[in-house]
């Protein structure tokens, strides 16, 4: 299921899928990415990390001190000036490489819709086959805002030439973690 998901997700363009056995390894990867993207405490260079089950047991204060510019409080202004937005998605769809999340909390949408790079955390065991399977897991009666995300923001509105990153992220980095402890 993971291989199918990865292939479909990466086929959407400007998307990379990483898989880690443990949360600690995933965190090292994310820290590396923040460093590589030169996240710093300057508008335009922030990283915002919306409330995620992944963060359970992680000392966010310590992490924020370690990476200046990394914010765990997602406001309009911070998200507007963020280069990276990190959110945790609830489900993955293997057939299309789609991510799904209950985005009722506005921070989740701010972090994933305004940044240049969206880092999406996903529990590997939360990958289901397809949309009908997802629709048995998520229902509008319990979620006010369900968001499905596949690949980066794109357009072909000028001469039908593909351009990436119109109003949303240019790049999608999906970080799958196998170890379910603290992720669900």
């Amino acid at each position, binding site marked *: 299921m993971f291989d199918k998901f990865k292939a479909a997700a990466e086929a959407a363009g400007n998307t990379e899928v990483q898989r880690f056995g443990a949360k600690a390894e995933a965190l090292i990867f994310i820290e590396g990415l923040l460093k590589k993207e030169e996240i710093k405490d300057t508008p335009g260079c922030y990283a915002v990390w919306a409330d995620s089950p992944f963060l359970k047991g992680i000392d966010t204060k310590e992490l924020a001190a370690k990476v200046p510019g990394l914010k765990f409080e997602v406001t309009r202004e911070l998200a*507007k000036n963020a280069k990276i937005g990190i959110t945790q998605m609830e489900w993955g769809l293997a057939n299309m490489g789609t991510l799904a999340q209950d985005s009722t909390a*506005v921070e989740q949408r701010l972090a994933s819709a305004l940044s240049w790079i969206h880092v999406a955390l996903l529990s590997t065991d939360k990958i289901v086959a397809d949309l009908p399977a997802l*629709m048995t897991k998520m*229902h509008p009666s319990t979620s006010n805002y369900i968001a499905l995300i596949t690949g980066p923001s794109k357009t072909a*509105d000028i001469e039908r030439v593909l351009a990436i*990153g119109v109003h949303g992220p240019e790049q999608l980095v999906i970080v799958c973690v196998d170890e379910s402890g603290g992720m669900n």
Partner: protein
Amino acid sequence: MKKELAQSIHEALERQNLAGILDRWNYPATRAKAYEGIDFEAIRNRIAEIKGSAADHLEELAEKFKKSAEARGAKVFRANSPEAVKDYITNLCKEKDVKKIVKSKSMASEEIHLNKHLAKHGIQADETDLGEWIIQLAHQTPSHMVMPALHLTKEEVADLFSKETHQQQSTDIQQLVKVARKELRGKYFDADMGMSGANIAIAETGTLVICTNEGNARLVTTLPKIHVALVGLEKLVANYADAEPIITALPKSATSQLITSYVSFITGPSPNTDGSLKELHIVLMDNKRTAMAKDPQFKEALQCIRCASCLNVCPVYRLVTGHVFGHIYTGGIGTILTAWFNEMETTGDIQGLCIGCGKCKEICPGKIDIPALILELRRRVASKEGLPFIYKTALSVINNRKLFQAMLRAAFIAQKPFVKEGFIRHLPMFLSNLSEYRSLPTIAPVPFRDVFKKIKQPQSKTKASFFAGCAIEFVNPGIGAAIVKVLNKAGIEVVFPEDQSCCGIPHWGSGSFDMAAAAAAHNIKPLLADDVEYVVVGCATCATALKKEWPHLLKDQNMDSLVPGAKKVAAKTVMFSELVNKLIEEKKLTPKDGLKLQTLTYHDSCHAKRHVGIDKEPRAALAAAGYELKEMFECDTCCGMGGSYTVKQPEISMQMLKRKLKNIEDTGAEYVSAECPGCLIQLGGGLDKSGSKIKAKHPAELMEDKFK
């Protein structure tokens, strides 16, 4: 045709930016790839059932949606007229002191020219979908339903952006997209209200489903404190599960994608960034949709999911593109929607753009018979306003074959007076006075009925009635003679009922269903007079009438007593190649030994392939008769003849022919064949005019001497 329409067609044909883009896209192939592993027929049957049933229960679903959405905290306003929508939104803006609105795509808002109305009240509404923003800056209407600004070049977009930003912008598309991102980003944050449409409205849960690739709808529905969704009633479906096939099909049909980058399910308000709850208003707009749902024929048009695939495959749209259609909704489905949402009469001219080739019907995910609905519009306009006198007279003449023959004989001797009177232009096909891309056909000196009398046939118990049709009778009787010859080889004796006349398709195509039914009524008895096993036709257009349309036509015109006869004719009717293929399989026809192999490319006439479903049979029969097939690109795309279309829309017809000729030439084959004398007149005339070596021949002519 009005002068303005002719002019706008001419201008569109001069300006081929969008047409070129659609050609380079190769939509049919990319669409097929997106649907790989998916049973398209099954999914479109589901969509047709879901949306068809929703159309049957529109009122009930609208009320249920209102109840469900309001239970979740949304405000739902039901508006019958465009004015009611405008008033509600304007009043809301006044009440909440809204000065700036950011919008994601809403065709419903364009349908009622909402932006213009808001501007009058001092409210600025900025489109955020890139294409919509571009046409807003250009003060134009969409040229395509999904990609509204494709008619503009990157240079033109750069000019628009330069003006808007007061800064010279480069023509690099990636750069231009970044300019739009930067310009619009500020607007989302400043706006007092976000406005969206919806792709689906789920009654069970009161949910709006919005699909975008750019992610603008996510921002529009997140950043401003008020969200107004303007939704046409046709977006309603009953249940949550009903959304699934639509979400699956829409992106595949629209842009050949598996899924759009973003799909949002919004049910009731969500929190704003300051912790308050968003104000969510949903305006359910009727604007004639309920009336449409009550119309037994047009109810089907509510199954549309607005994917625009009918535009992408339409050979006419691909040439003239959107602006010729004159309103917001373009292409085949746009012709229908415009007639209902705006004025039936004003769209009369646009309805004439459809050549009836049926390509859109094959790929419509809502399973809408678009050409049939356009024809029904023509019928209604024709029965209300009447056809022009000269046109009606011409149609009467062809229902009387003796008179028709007399007139054609006169035309053969002296064409001029007829051309001058403008009479000949209204006869079905083949007498067009246009010759820029096509040589004129000449009327045969001896019509088929006289040729037939001189053919010596062996007597046989197996008899077939031959229905010649106007073109074989008067322009190319040689095809008829070849058909008789081949069938004789199989031991079939051909009878030719002299009392036959036109099949009625020209009348049908112009919306004159009563005259078409009269044509059917006239022919049934003569065709069944002898005890025949088959009724053979060598013309795909006539085949459509005999095999398919006569029984419906007669029933519709309350001529029920003739329906059994029409059904009998339909059951006995075979296309020539269909019969030959059967006779070869039954070993009643045997190809000669040592036939020299020749090369051929086959053009599928629209009527043969999409109306009566004959495409494999002629290929198999011709292959057995020693022809090696070299398939052309888009072998089943219309050649532009379309019966009288070639005289009513000459410019479009000629452009379609030009493309077809190129595809034929590219195969390098010796012959092009089609089982439709109309197509052959178009193709043969075009090849002749361009000095090509390729000959256009009917399958009967090609097989005349090939059997033992």
